[in-house]
């Protein structure tokens, strides 16, 4: 469902972040993207949600060429992608409920839909009872679960998680990974950038390793092994 064809990305400062990369992410797959800093992982995910344009090559999302999409179509692409970041990126002045509802408000959902979908999404991450709390009063793990809840509330086709466990202790990280597995089981494609060796080794999912802007390894049920 997501295909990258011969992608090359050269930044204006002449740095070549990606060099002739071709990857397919089948629908419902669970993918780890690993590699040292500067390998091109961030650039790759930015191309998928179109924060960046490739210098050469095509990105296809659900059969549509993301690169050629008009600017006003980009918000609709992003509503099909749930984003989870290392630093959670929650709005501090909104409650847990409001943070999750916000993704739906942006998409123009009706009050009725919001009232149904938000508690359901909070239920999935086990934070229904914290709906009225502000993010500042939550632990890191809880905040990350709120952001996962926000990412899934729109029923996205893809979840991109950029080092989601980077700020979490190992136990909390594992809880989060189980959550991602559950979400993946319901058919959502997951693309996770991570440096968490133990998690990758244990999960036995597809591992794509980038180095110097190129795919150096692509294994089903792979390990971290850098």
């Amino acid at each position: 469902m997501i295909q990258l064809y011969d992608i090359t990305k050269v930044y204006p400062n002449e740095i070549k972040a990606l060099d002739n990369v071709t990857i397919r992410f089948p629908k419902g797959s669970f993918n780890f993207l690993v590699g040292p800093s500067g390998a091109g992982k961030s650039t790759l995910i930015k191309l998928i949600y179109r924060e960046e344009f490739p210098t050469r090559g095509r990105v296809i999302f659900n059969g549509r060429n993301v690169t050629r999409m008009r600017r006003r179509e980009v918000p609709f692409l992003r509503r099909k992608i749930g984003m989870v970041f290392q630093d959670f990126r929650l709005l501090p002045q909104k409650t847990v409920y409001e943070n999750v509802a916000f993704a739906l408000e942006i998409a123009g959902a009706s009050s009725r839909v919001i009232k149904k979908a938000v508690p359901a999404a909070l239920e999935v991450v086990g934070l229904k009872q914290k709906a009225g709390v502000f993010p500042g009063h939550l632990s890191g793990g809880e905040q990350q679960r709120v952001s996962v809840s926000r990412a899934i509330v729109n029923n996205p086709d893809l979840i991109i998680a950029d080092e989601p466990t980077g700020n979490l202790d190992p136990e909390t990280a594992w809880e989060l990974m189980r959550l991602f597995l559950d979400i993946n089981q319901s058919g959502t494609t997951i693309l996770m950038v991570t440096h968490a060796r133990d998690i990758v080794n244990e999960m036995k999912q597809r591992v794509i390793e980038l180095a110097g802007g190129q795919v150096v390894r692509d294994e089903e049920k792979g390990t971290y092994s850098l």
Partner: protein
Amino acid sequence: MRLRTICYYFREALQSILRNSWLSITSIGVVAVSLFILGCSLLVVLNAGNVADNLESSVEISIFFKDQATPAQIKEVEDKLTGLSEVAQYEFVTKQKALEEMKKNFGEQKGILDGLEEEEKNPLPDAFRVKTHMVEQVAPLAKQFEGLIQVDEVRYGQGVVEQLMALSHWVRTAGLVTMVLLGVAAVFLIATTIRLSVFSRRREIEIMKFLGATNWFVRFPFLLEGMFLGLAGSLLAVAAIYYGYFSIISSIQVSLPFVPMVSNRNLIILLMEGLLLAGLVIGAAGSMISVRRFLKV
């Protein structure tokens, strides 16, 4: 657009104004002062124009005939006046009428003119008094009658007319330049305020863009915020100008009744509406300028 979304826009705008209350008050004040000065200079221009128009409309050409001019020769000049499109109106003033007017002007000293009533003794000439549509037409029109054999002299306050034209042109230009400069200044001040408000929320904007918000969804609350600040400022300015102006007018009308002030209430109200609109536009323009840079995520 859903009602929920509209409520969201207004709630966000209001929250932002309250959150940055000092900044909001400052920018309302800045807009109020700018638009107050703008409105005052508009009124000055309007009144200067009014005075100029009054003076202009009192400029007339006098065509004096020689004593020996025959009625036919006078008729010839009248025919020429009738045929000219620049002529707004003209009046034939016989030497008798001129004398009567002069007596009226002399008031109590009119005795000096006694004994001049007889036609042979009256030294005043017959004349046409001509008004043009526009003050610019005075000098060229006057030239057309100079040098005719029956015409003794053509007068139109040479020099004064040219100076008057230059003055009214200058007042209008200066007023226009002041208004444009103040308008631009107000836009940039609002832009600065909104920029601070946008800057303090840049992370929020970034998150909104990641979540798939359209540019208008991000922009609208800021647009409302700017428009509200602009409108609030212009309301203050309008209130001050409106009450200030009419109290000034009423005192001028008592102490300097010959100064032709613009007191047409409808015209002033139109001007005030214009200022309110200007406030809205300034606010909107300011916020659009500020948000633009942060939407490129």
